[in-house]
């Protein structure tokens, strides 16, 4: 799979490269959502994703292949120090909150504002309430996302989604993880209605998920893929690729030129391992 990304992609069409950024307060489950989506795995107390610039995951949609390039915050959100470069040119953003923590929705709202101020004008934003598994089944709100493959959740510690949990010098997220470690269920602090109402008002897609069980996770990416202006993205990337030497300022590709056999813009590194279980749609 990873050996010859180009040939495997040409099964149908050239994949449409889509930059998707994750946003949300620390410890809401951002990395876990990606891990579930890209590898269909879940790790309790997930290790920090050291060294991964982003992961890629393909998703087939009718006659199109969308290649998500998923960017994680690398912990820079923790002290509100995320660089603008992060959401530059993002086609899609997944803003995550924890349904058992009302404060995380407030933080999500400020990320949405920031995106609407700074990111591409037509960026597709999905608001995702995560950690449904922490909520007692009876108190779960109306399910909007279809259930995909529900793997049996392993009991034990709840997820502590930190890029670097061991390095957290602040008390906020650190205590969060410790506190949740011995609690099996927590009261829901954000209802589905509340989340949906805000999403509708701000023009966002809305989902509720459990990265732990897999519930609703695939749906997030599928619906984003459906809503993306893929024709625009495709024509724009083709324009960039075909920019000739006489077209004003020319894009240069450092990676190709320096002979490392991997290209930067246009067809970015195919870094994903475990790409076997992409969207089954």
């Amino acid at each position, binding site marked *: 799979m990873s050996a010859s990304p180009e040939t495997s992609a040409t099964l149908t069409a050239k994949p449409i490269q889509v930059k998707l950024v994750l946003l949300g307060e620390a410890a809401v489950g951002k990395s876990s959502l990606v891990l579930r989506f890209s590898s269909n795995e879940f790790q309790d107390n997930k290790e920090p994703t050291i060294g991964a610039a982003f992961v890629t995951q393909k998703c087939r949609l009718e006659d199109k292949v969308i290649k998500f390039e998923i960017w994680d915050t690398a912990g820079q959100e923790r002290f509100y120090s995320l660089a603008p470069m992060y959401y530059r040119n993002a086609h899609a953003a997944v803003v995550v909150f924890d349904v058992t923590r009302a404060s995380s929705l407030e933080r999500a709202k400020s990320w949405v504002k920031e995106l609407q101020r700074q990111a591409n004008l037509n960026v597709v934003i999905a608001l995702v309430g995560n950690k449904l598994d922490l909520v007692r089944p009876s108190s779960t709100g109306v399910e909007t996302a279809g259930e995909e493959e529900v793997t049996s959740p392993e009991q034990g510690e709840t997820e502590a989604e930190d890029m670097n949990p061991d390095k957290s010098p602040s008390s906020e997220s650190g205590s969060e993880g410790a506190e949740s470690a011995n609690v099996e269920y927590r009261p829901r602090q954000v209802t589905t209605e509340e989340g949906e109402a805000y999403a509708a008002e701000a023009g966002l897609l809305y989902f509720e998920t459990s990265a732990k069980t897999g519930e609703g996770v695939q749906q997030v990416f599928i619906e984003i893929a459906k809503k993306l202006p893929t024709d625009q993205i495709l024509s724009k990337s083709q324009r960039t690729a075909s920019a000739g030497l006489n077209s004003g*300022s020319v894009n240069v590709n450092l990676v190709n030129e320096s002979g490392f056999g991997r290209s930067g813009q246009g067809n970015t590194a195919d870094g994903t391992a475990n790409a076997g279980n992409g969207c089954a749609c």
Partner: protein
Amino acid sequence: MEEEYDVIVLGTGLTECVLSGVFSVEGKKVLHVDRNDYYGGESASLNLTQLYRKFRDGAEPPAEFGRDRDYNVDLIPKFMMANEELVRVLTHTDVTRYLEFKQVDGSYVYRDGRISKVPSNEFEAVSTPLVGLFEKRRLKKFLEFVQKWKDDDPSTHQGVDLDRMQAIDMFKKFGLEAGTQDFIGHAMALYTDDEFLYSPAREMYDRIILYVSSVARYGKSPYIYPMYGLGELPQGFARLSAIYGGTYMLDKPVDEILYDDNGKFRGIRSGEECAYAKMVVGDPSYFPDKVKPVGRVIRAICLLEKPIPQTGDLSSVQIIIPQKQLGRKHDIYIACVSSTHSVCAKGYYLAIVSTVVETDIPEKEILPALKLLGPITEKFVSVSNVTVPLEDGTTDNVYISKSYDASSHFVSIYQDIRDIYKRATGKELVIKRRPRQEEEQATLGSA
């Protein structure tokens, strides 16, 4: 914040961010702090609001300039040479993945009241209007000599010993006129003054080769420039650092630098919080009592609505005015980029004029350069001290970067990065190619 780190880094300028990234990749535990709420420190690219906050006391930017988000105005003008060391660092660390570069469209030099393209190879030397007919042949011979030189092949040396012969004597050997020497030394070797003439020719040779090979790489000029401005570079390295576990705190004032009884660095205090480490790397603004000024640089950021005249409507260009042309000791640089590079709103151009200050009226010194720009819509002028650290840091474990000089590229910045790394670790900085992500994923999976 209350914690022990391996390294604390203060300021998110390019030098600090590269070092932060290198340290994190090596597995060191890094805390990276900046008092500003944006990345880049002195080497940031600012939006309009930030620009007006800095230069106009927070006045409201004029509405006709367009949207805030369309602006990424560099505070320090520089272009990156396609073959310079920093480019290799970018590719080896994969920071290029976060960036998109464009070629700079032209490299020009001012001579006798007009500007012309810098000839970069023997073919262009033949057609350049910069030199007379007979001089052209001599210039062509000189460039051929430089390009054919091989250290281990004496037949290419023509009796020249690069390590002994002064640059001026090498010019004389080829019979080059003062004007030709001027543009080779200043527009190709990119010296900002004339001291090089009396040093061994080796360094000039290296610099000419860097210029020529950089031009050869993309064709139009030796320079490349990142979309959204130079501020993307520190951000890219900061992300590298964060990905490898570095902790980032912006908008965090540093109220005190803490030392132990022996005067060695112990930590920093911000408000009630402290963080500790064995060493600190930082920009000069965090250590005002440990640096000394060695000169001043004036920079004038000019917003234009038309490309610079005489450049053939290029959307990006560098113009060098060699010192002798204006009876100065230091060259004046003009670096122009535009909306093509997503640094300003559509239809605008950003030109930054910069030079080393020589008089008490720095603004007057740059007037000849400003005149070349055509009508200037808005202008932001700053004069900053260039400082160097008083000590090398090995006694107190405080490693301070040099402030950004007037040079047009990143060679001196990378030199400083290497120096600091060596002083701080005792080792040479070797940037190895990062393992590919596939390999990393495989490692993670099997762990």
